[in-house]
């Protein structure tokens, strides 16, 4: 019974495919369709809900209510404001689509599409539950990064085609940032690939699906895994342009960055792509380091696997929101310094630490050595990044 509940979506799909009136030749297409549509629907809905949740959570962080008005139309039912995203969507759809006269119309039109398609493609390799990866690709992780890399170009297209100085600055920033942070992102992933010995996301999750006692064998519970997770998460924030790395939009500096000249539904697409990118990369972080769909404690395994995946996803999204509500934005040169002078060396050291972990016998020594290998450079690099003691809190003198 529990198993059936766990596999409910898989069973449903098989059941739907088993209907006799489908012609045999259409069945592969249908199977693909049945995988794609739910994913698109679920994540589009998650996007809508997340925008409201984010605004509400940031509102609470800032001691306000956040959106709490829009509910069912023509009634007093307010649903805690969760009708907001539908209203926003309708607004975006009905808004006038303005294209600047000087803009390159074709590229301007193509940019949001070129952004949203790869972002959706990235979802095809994430395992959402047991037997619930749309494609079990031998090169799943590589696929993810490959389609992720394709988004950079659409950012450039958007920024360049708008013929706006701010948008061009934003695009430049965005591309520089994405390329820089892709390096630590991929290198921190390599540790996991090394340990598991496969690029397949399904295999990576399976490698973490064991328990010693109650504790799971998640990668995050090792020194290299923890360091890798943190590095991955920081790089993921940068990749998805989330605060404090939201320079490409930098609304106080370059107004809205590369999508400044977009309005209406095209703007909504950028917004959607940004959030979907965040979900996708959080999903990968879960797959790589947080044990994918496995339960955090052995006795909790009776809950369906997809529930755990989405619980972890929501936890990561909350973390993103929390960080956004707290920190100011970095500056371009600091962002680059952080990527190349801190993230990259740490990621490389992390590879060495993971290798050492692999060869050392299990036990306390292994923990101590690997942790030391990571903490010492962290402290040193951190100090270097803050310019020795250059940036510190100061004490002030007073005149009577």
């Amino acid at each position: 019974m529990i198993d059936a509940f766990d596999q409910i979506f898989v069973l449903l799909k098989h059941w739907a495919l088993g209907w006799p009136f489908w012609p045999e030749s259409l069945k592969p297409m249908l199977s693909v369709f049945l995988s794609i549509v739910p994913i698109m629907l679920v994540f589009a809905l998650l996007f809508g809900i997340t925008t409201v949740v984010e605004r509400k959570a940031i509102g609470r962080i800032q001691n306000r209510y956040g959106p709490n008005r829009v509910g069912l139309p023509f009634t007093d039912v307010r649903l805690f404001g969760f009708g907001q995203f539908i209203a926003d969507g309708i607004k975006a759809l009905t808004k006038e689509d303005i294209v600047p006269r000087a803009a390159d119309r074709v590229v301007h039109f193509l940019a949001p599409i070129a952004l949203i398609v790869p972002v959706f493609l990235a979802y095809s390799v994430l395992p959402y539950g047991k037997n619930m990866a749309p494609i079990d690709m031998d090169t799943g992780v590589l696929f993810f990064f490959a389609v992720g890399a394709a988004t950079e170009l659409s950012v450039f297209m958007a920024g360049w085609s708008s013929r706006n100085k701010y948008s061009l600055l934003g695009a430049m920033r965005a591309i520089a940032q994405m390329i820089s942070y892709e390096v630590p992102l991929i290198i921190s992933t390599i540790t996991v690939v090394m340990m598991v010995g496969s690029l397949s996301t399904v295999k990576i999750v399976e490698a973490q699906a064991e328990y010693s006692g109650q504790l799971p064998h998640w990668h995050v519970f090792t020194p290299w895994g923890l360091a890798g997770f943190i590095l991955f998460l920081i790089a993921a924030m940068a990749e998805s342009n989330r605060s404090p790395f939201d320079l490409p939009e930098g609304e106080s500096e370059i107004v809205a960055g590369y999508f400044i000249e977009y309005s209406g539904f095209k703007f909504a697409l950028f917004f959607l792509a940004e959030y979907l990118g965040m979900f996708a990369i959080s999903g990968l972080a879960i797959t790589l380091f947080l044990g994918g769909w496995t339960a955090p404690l052995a006795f909790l395994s009776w809950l369906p696997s997809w529930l755990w995946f989405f619980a972890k996803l929501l936890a990561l999204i909350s973390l993103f929101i929390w960080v956004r509500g707290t920190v100011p934005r970095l500056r371009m040169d600091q962002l680059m310094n952080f990527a190349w002078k801190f993230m990259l060396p740490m990621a490389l050291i992390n590879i060495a630490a993971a290798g050492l972990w692999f060869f050392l016998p299990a036990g306390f020594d292994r923990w101590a050595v690997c942790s030391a290998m990571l903490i010492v450079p962290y402290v040193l690099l951190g100090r270097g990044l803050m310019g020795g003691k250059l940036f510190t809190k100061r004490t002030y003198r007073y005149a009577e």
Partner: protein
Amino acid sequence: MLGEGIIKGLAETARNFVGSYVDKERLVTVQYPEERLPAKEAARNFPFLVFDGHDPHAGLRCVACQICEKECPPQCIYIEKSMDKKPDYVGKPQFYPKIFDIDISVCMSCQICVEVCPFEAIKMDTEFELSHTDRFAGLLFDKHQLAKSNEYYQKIHPNEAAEVDGHLAAEKAKAEVKAKADADAKARIAAAKTTTPPAAKPTPAPTS
């Protein structure tokens, strides 16, 4: 160590997040159309004209002296004096404003008209939901829209209104006493007239 300050900041925002659910101090938002802040005694928005009694025309305190029109910094008051006179609260015949307009799209709620008015005739209203679809005529308030009863004034500014009322009542009492004295004097003079031939002039009534 790197990251310490950020983690402290995260703790602070988390405290505020939780605090906004449990601590009234932290969630100060008032949900406006449903909830309203308690009215403040001193609150002011746009001026209105006070009238006594029930008839806005008969009870209007304004005597069209046009001081407020002159003193108003943005010049948003327009007054036209009447030709005839009507009795004021003490019964003295006074001019009244034939036209009294305030353009509230120009008014900056500075309260100077109230300060300069010697007749306690213009006061500050607390009503602020005055939005209108007609930006010219809709925001030009005439005498009828501006006239509000003394009871209303007492409701929105109780302490101030009590002081003003006391002041006016005292003046009225004084005027009554004076009127009575005048009447007495007149009576006396009349009586004297009957006794003495037209030799003495009536003593002029003391002017206050």
